[in-house]
């Protein structure tokens, strides 16, 4: 079945409307017509994660789109993983997924089951590092029919420090300080480089030419990070049509997961 996977519709036929799912027809040189079903769509939106000394913040907008249509103004992209029951009581890991929402939901449920089974079988909570590697394997297991999502996983590591892992759709992953994903990733990421990792910032009058000292990146306090996240999304909303409606934030600390919702522009 994997070999049946077909290439996405050519880029020259405009934005990926959901109603593009009506027959994608290829006409060959000999005049035969082949209809094909394309199993993916893009539901837009953006996510963002930043880790600090003793916390991790994940954020995502709550708009769901197909083409130029807004499906809904509130479809969360952030999911608690593990914990007790359907409310994930006592959970300390958050997964954010952006891209094809149906794959995102399927992926979330797979990972949630794995983390819950781990608790039942071993009698202890799964560490973020273990969960991160397991997520990579889940994604790579579908290497030839991928989950079409950019995932970001957040939690606290075994020393209690903020931990953040980002993934590509086929499971290659990396622990990072900050990461933006989704439709407005290209807008948000350079802003984060500058404001979180202090890229291209130097200490004034610290030397001439190559002696000039770069400003050292430090772990940011929680309220600074929250402000940066809001600024990043306010900027993205202004310049990207698929981002908007609401901002959902999850802050993971040693006391658990705090969820904050704030409105974004709805236009």
């Amino acid at each position: 079945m994997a070999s049946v996977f077909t290439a996405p519709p050519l880029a020259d036929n405009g934005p990926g409307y959901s109603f593009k799912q009506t027959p994608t027809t290829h006409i060959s040189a000999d005049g035969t017509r082949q209809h094909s079903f394309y199993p993916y769509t893009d539901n837009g939106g953006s996510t963002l994660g930043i880790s600090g000394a003793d916390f991790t913040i994940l954020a995502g907008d709550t708009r769901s789109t197909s083409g130029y249509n807004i499906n809904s103004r509130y479809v969360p992209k952030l999911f608690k993983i593990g914990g007790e029951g359907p409310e994930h009581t006592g959970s300390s890991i958050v997964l954010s997924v952006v891209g094809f929402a149906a794959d995102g939901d399927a992926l979330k449920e797979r990972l949630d089951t794995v983390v819950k089974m781990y608790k039942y079988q071993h009698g202890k909570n799964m560490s973020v590092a273990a969960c991160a590697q397991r997520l990579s394997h889940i994604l790579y297991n579908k290497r030839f029919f991928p989950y079409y999502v950019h995932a970001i996983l957040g939690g606290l590591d075994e020393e209690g420090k903020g931990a953040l892992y980002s993934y590509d759709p086929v499971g290659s992953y990396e622990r990072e300080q900050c990461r933006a994903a989704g439709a407005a990733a290209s807008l948000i990421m350079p802003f984060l480089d500058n404001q979180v990792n202090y890229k291209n910032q130097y200490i004034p009058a610290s030397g001439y030419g190559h002696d000039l000292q770069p400003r050292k990146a430090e772990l940011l306090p929680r309220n600074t990070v929250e402000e940066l996240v809001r600024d990043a999304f306010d900027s993205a909303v202004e310049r990207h049509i698929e981002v908007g409606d609401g901002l959902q934030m999850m802050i993971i600390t040693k006391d658990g997961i705090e969820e904050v919702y704030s409105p974004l522009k709805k236009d």
Partner: protein
Amino acid sequence: MNHLPQAWGRPRDDVYGAYDHSYFQTSGPKQSTQQPIVTGTSVIAIKFKDGVVIATDNLASYGSLARFTDVKRLRQFNKSTILGFGGDVSDMQYLDRLLLSLAIRENYSSYSSASDDTDDTSNLESLNAKNLHTYMSKVMYRRRSDFNPLWNQILVAGFGNDEKPFLASVDLLGTTFSSPSLATGFGAHLAQPIMRKVVPDEASVANLDKETAVQTIRDCMKVLFYRDARSMDKYSIAVVTKDGIDLKEDEKLENQSWAFADRIKGYGTQVV
């Protein structure tokens, strides 16, 4: 026609060429739906303080041909859930059979297990709209992952675990979402803006009464009939409340306004 019975009822070879038997092949590669054939257009629905109103017209089109004019595209499930189907009608009928078997299985098992410990079967926990939507999303997502999609977009209306009105959508890719008002197909362009004026957000659902909700849906059906070429003026409407479902399947659009038509060429009122 000749005297050979195998040729009777078949296109004549001398006129149409040899008959292509490949269409009747039962062996060979597995086939799956790659495009919808007989289709239903928009489904629209809106939540209000005590429940959900949902509607579709009664038309099944074959391309641009209005082929079947009495097709019911709202389906009741259990006592308080309605599903509205857009897209391929044969896939809808398959899902109808699937849901029937699910209902029989589910109600039989819950009835017998409940009667073990109590005689009271009146407030049995059966599948509610939220449970059914989850079930539908798994069916649809599984079929798309097998590259054999069920070519529908479905709205599920009823109540959730919290007894609050529930409305959600699932489509042929398994994509799911929920909103105070939902519309499929052309309705997403024409009806959704009208409905969003009435319920812009979840909070405003609590302030919407049944009469306004029903009237909004009826207005939307009229707009859809005016501007969606694949629609019809006969429609079904269902009001889902705690007291049960009020399903009407033979509604006719009323108070249509064609006053503008006599000034426009193409409506048959002008000869030259």
